[in-house]
């Protein structure tokens, strides 16, 4: 590339600061969203990996049991009788810690002497004093926390911490602080309360039971050990355990990434738009260059180089913005993961170099891709252009048929992927994008159609109206791109809104049908995929309260299923709750479902059936405390509480196979005629002294919906950004149009058109474009919503969502589009006011 050419084009950029700025902003916004989501995902994943590192350490395998854990004797046998040395007992659980910011923390109980081969986080530093270790070893309730956590919450050695454990509060004492030599591993220790194994057993009320046993062994050694294990225990690879948990959130994280890419895609439209405009603006300059001997190839490279430079600047800006946005996003992501999947504490966004590099490359590549077509257009500017008018629009119109064919192909391939793409979510999203862009290909044709319609209708009003619709068609190459970007953004908004609204309505209805008890009693700390326990004796105390008609008990645990890994199992003795479940499908007649459950069969939720590809008639083999047992499925029922799915079992059957008398919660039905509030107070009083949460039907329903809304908060945020990007798109497109028409407008002014009329013209053009985008966005948005509901959600999360129409959203879409378009017309209008007729005429 000749330096002088680069100088020519880059100096030209400085002469068009607005244009340059728009291009940079489009890239920056797109990159920022992608980087923000990527950073948030990476931070969440990294936090998870770090906590896994803490928990798993160097273990290659783990021995795990059912909800009740593992008997101490198993460890003793392995260590003492079999002489295994690389083996460590672990007792762990989640508790609330008031003094640690009220967050949920992990209590990890270890045996100091078994630890060395496994975990190094205490050993890495020398800051844990021997006095502290002595206390840690011998004192009940002695714990170590990280020095960073202590500093953050203003705690020091000797301070007490109150833990919320199940339904009780217990006090522990900090006997020492763990300091880490570097920043990364210190974050490992956050959210961790380290105790001696004896202390952990006592705190968590797990005396005589271990949560798991860690091993370092070859697969062959592990196999030998496996054979000595009693029934109900499993030996799994440590990595498998970690993988399972990562996979839990895979769909969620992928969905976020897809939405962020959508923002980038809208950004690409913008870049295309801006570069195309700059090419149009420079036809004369390019013509001169062609005349004096610059080849088409050089012009092509020149435009690409320009895009690359601006792409780089925009991407760098996007990185900064992305990191800032990432800090906001990570909180949302973490919250959702905590709500839906597992406990994760992410204190800060980790600036992952890979994410930044990815964002940078993505920004530059998008800029290059988006600039490729305009650059090609520029390279084919005939040299004679210096003396002639553009024939660009003619060419675009000749290109329309191929555009439509291209659209058909994209739609066909996209639809094919969606229908046959199974549950590969990445592939499904490729399908969504293909369908969306396939539809975009029709924007030019449809724009012409809508404008003809406009000419035929509002065109009768007057000359300006007729002129405006014709202008839109005349400048189709730029107007259609602007309309398309706005349309895509608004369509995404419609699609996502309709999907969320449908989902919410479905969940609301489901909650209404399912939550039929009057109030619910549970331990304070409950969350997805966590096992919480309370004393079964509380049930009897509640039952004795006057006005209590019936009580139904729930035991919710994670158990191991052969080939399926860990699965959630809900065991209830519910008589009334049964009536509320709605079965999607079942074997036999509906009356026989519950008798079959009582006889030892199970039912599964819809996500479970979809995820594991089972249905009524299939069997699921669960590893019970009595060994592996096959349970047959009698039915599949709707459930929206977890995308992992769960198994429903009769409580009696559960207790028959598992030695686990604990309960996870119970629901209370108030006798007819009794006052619900009075009974609730009575139950509260009866359970006094125990920390339980008593939630009314209403409160529980609201709480569920709060979590629901929180889950989609990030999607909403991304939606707003997509609209912002599209707004800038339409702004730049309009500015481009108006700037290009300076001479024409000058002429109009010279021939006697008033400024007012010109404003009218501009507003009309802009409004027409916005309206077109809005109108086109409605069907596209509905198609998108349908795909999200019937394909993406069903395949990636396994939920059937019932489509709910949201009429106001269409009006909103139209309003947003037109408003955005009209707002975008303001700058060109201001510029019109300053237009010097003579100057405008003299140009060219």
């Amino acid at each position: 590339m000749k330096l002088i050419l680069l100088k020519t084009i880059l100096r030209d950029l400085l002469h068009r600061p607005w244009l340059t700025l728009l291009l940079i902003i489009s890239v920056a916004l797109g990159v920022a969203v992608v980087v923000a989501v990527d950073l948030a995902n990476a931070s969440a994943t990294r936090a998870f990996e770090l906590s896994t590192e803490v928990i798993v350490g160097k273990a290659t395998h783990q021995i795990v049991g059912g909800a009740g854990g593992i008997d101490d004797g198993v460890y003793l046998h392995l260590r003492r009788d079999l002489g295994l040395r690389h083996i460590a007992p672990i007792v762990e659980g989640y508790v609330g810690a008031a003094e640690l910011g009220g967050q949920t923390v992990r209590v990890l109980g270890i045996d100091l002497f078994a630890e060395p081969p496994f975990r190094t986080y205490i050993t890495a530093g020398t800051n844990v004093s021997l006095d502290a270790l002595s206390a840690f070893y011998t004192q009940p309730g002695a714990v170590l926390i990280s020095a960073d956590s202590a500093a953050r919450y203003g705690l020091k050695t000797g301070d007490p911490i109150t833990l919320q454990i199940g339904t009780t509060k217990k006090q522990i004492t900090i006997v020492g602080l763990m300091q880490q030599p570097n920043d990364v591993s210190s974050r490992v220790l956050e959210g961790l309360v380290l105790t001696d194994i004896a202390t952990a057993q006592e705190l968590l009320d797990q005396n005589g039971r271990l949560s798991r046993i860690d091993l370092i062994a070859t697969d062959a050694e592990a196999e030998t050990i496996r054979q000595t294990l009693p029934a109900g225990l499993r030996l799994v690879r440590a990595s498998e355990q970690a993988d399972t948990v990562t996979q839990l959130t895979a769909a969620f994280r992928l969905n976020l990434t897809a939405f962020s890419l959508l923002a980038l895609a809208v950004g690409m439209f913008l870049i295309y738009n801006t570069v195309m405009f700059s090419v149009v603006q420079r036809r004369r300059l390019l013509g001169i260059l062609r005349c004096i001997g610059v080849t088409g190839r050089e012009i092509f490279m020149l435009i690409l180089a320009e895009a690359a430079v601006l792409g780089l600047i925009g991407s760098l800006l996007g990185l900064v913005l992305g990191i800032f946005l990432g800090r906001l996003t990570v909180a949302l992501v973490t919250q959702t993961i905590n709500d839906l999947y597992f406990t994760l504490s992410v204190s800060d966004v980790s600036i992952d170099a890979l994410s930044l590099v990815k964002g940078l490359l993505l920004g530059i590549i998008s800029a290059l891709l988006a600039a490729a077509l305009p650059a090609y257009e520029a390279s084919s500017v005939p040299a004679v252009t210096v003396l002639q008018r553009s024939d660009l629009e003619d060419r675009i119109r000749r290109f329309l048929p191929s555009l439509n064919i291209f659209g058909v192909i994209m739609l066909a391939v996209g639809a094919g992927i969606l229908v046959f793409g199974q549950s590969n979510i990445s592939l499904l999203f490729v399908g969504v994008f293909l369908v969306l862009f396939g539809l975009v290909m029709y924007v030019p044709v449809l724009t012409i159609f809508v404008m003809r319609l406009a000419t035929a209708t509002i065109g009768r009003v007057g000359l300006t109206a007729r002129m405006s619709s014709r202008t839109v068609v005349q400048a189709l190459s730029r107007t259609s791109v602007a309309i398309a970007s706005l349309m895509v953004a608004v369509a995404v908004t419609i699609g996502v809104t309709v999907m969320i609204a449908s989902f919410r309505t479905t969940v609301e209805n489901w909650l209404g049908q399912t939550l039929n008890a009057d109030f619910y009693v549970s331990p304070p700390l409950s969350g997805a995929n966590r096992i919480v326990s309370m004393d079964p004796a509380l049930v009897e105390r509640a039952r004795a309260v006057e006005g209590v008609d019936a009580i139904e008990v729930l035991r919710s645990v994670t158990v191991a299923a052969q080939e399926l890994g860990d699965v959630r199992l809900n065991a209830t003795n519910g008589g009334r709750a049964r009536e509320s479940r709605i079965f999607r499908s079942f074997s036999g007649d509906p009356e026989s479902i519950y008798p079959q459950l009582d006889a030892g069969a199970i039912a599964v939720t819809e996500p479970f059936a979809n995820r594991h590809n089972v249905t009524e008639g299939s069997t699921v083999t669960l590893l019970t405390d009595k060994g592996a047992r096959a349970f047959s499925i009698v039915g599949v029922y709707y459930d929206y509480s977890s995308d992992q799915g769960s198994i429903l079992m009769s409580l009696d059957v559960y207790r028959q196979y598992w030695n686990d008398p604990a309960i996870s919660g119970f629901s209370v039905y108030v006798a007819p005629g009794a006052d619900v509030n009075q009974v609730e107070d009575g139950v509260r009083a009866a359970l006094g002294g125990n920390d339980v949460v008593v939630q009314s039907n209403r409160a529980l329903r609201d709480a569920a919906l709060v979590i629901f809304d929180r889950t989609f908060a990030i999607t909403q945020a991304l939606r707003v950004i997509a609209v912002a990007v599209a707004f800038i798109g339409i702004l730049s497109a309009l500015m481009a149009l108006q700037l290009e028409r300076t001479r024409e407008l000058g002429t109009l002014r010279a021939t006697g058109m008033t400024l007012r009329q010109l404003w009218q013209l501009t507003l009309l053009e802009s409004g027409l474009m916005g309206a077109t985008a809005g109108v086109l966005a409605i069907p596209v948005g509905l198609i998108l919503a349908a795909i999200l509901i019937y394909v993406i959600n069903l395949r990636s999360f396994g939920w059937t969502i019932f489509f709910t129409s949201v009429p106001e959203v269409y009006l909103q879409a139209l309003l947003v589009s037109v408003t955005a378009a009209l707002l975008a017309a303001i700058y060109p209008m201001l510029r019109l006011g300053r237009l010097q007729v003579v100057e405008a005429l003299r140009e060219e």
Partner: protein
Amino acid sequence: MTSPNGNTPRAIPQTSLIRFENVTKMFQEGENERAVLQGVNGGIARGEFVAIVGRSGSGKSTLLNLLAGLDTPTCGDIYVGDTNVAKMSDHDRTLFRRKNIGFVFQFFNLIPTLTVRENVLMTAELSGWKDNDAQAQASRLLQAVGLLDRANVFPDKLSGGEQQRVAIARALCADPELILADEPTGNLDAETGARILELLTTLARKQGKTLVMVTHSNDVAARADRVLKMEHGKLAAVGPQVVESGT
């Protein structure tokens, strides 16, 4: 002297730098095709100063564009030296143009984002001159057009005449054999125009360049070695002096 239909080649100098044979150019206008040039033949000798005259729409600019390789004829051949420009690809034509042709336009067409010096040495740089050589050449030419002292200002600070002088320096900078000028005085007042013309012709002759100029001006045509007159897409007359009336 001239055949009525212009088909018979006449008075083509033996030492032609440029020969054009049976050159026809059609333009698409909606459904119809319109012939702007209809089988034009002719030639221009090395070192010759040829003026092309004719009414608006007579096809003189189209002919110039074809000679420059900016456009290709619908049919016919255009030889510059031994090269048939009409048969070359756009890319090759551009490279050919870059080396062999200098342009002077009516509206100057300087690149506003480059300084006077940069505008001038651009053509030399594009032709692959060494930087030092290009700089020296640019200085020499700016000296010749009397603007060396304005070398580092941007074109918008110059008057029309000055801009056109820069354009002349630019056209000569890569040392092309052929200078094509499209109404170089058309946008200037008479006095300035005369001076520019003087400068252009003097420099062209001094350096032995072939100069082809499209013009409306009789004064300009009067200075040419030969005048080609275009009428309705045909070469109406070729003569040492053709005085056109009515323009």
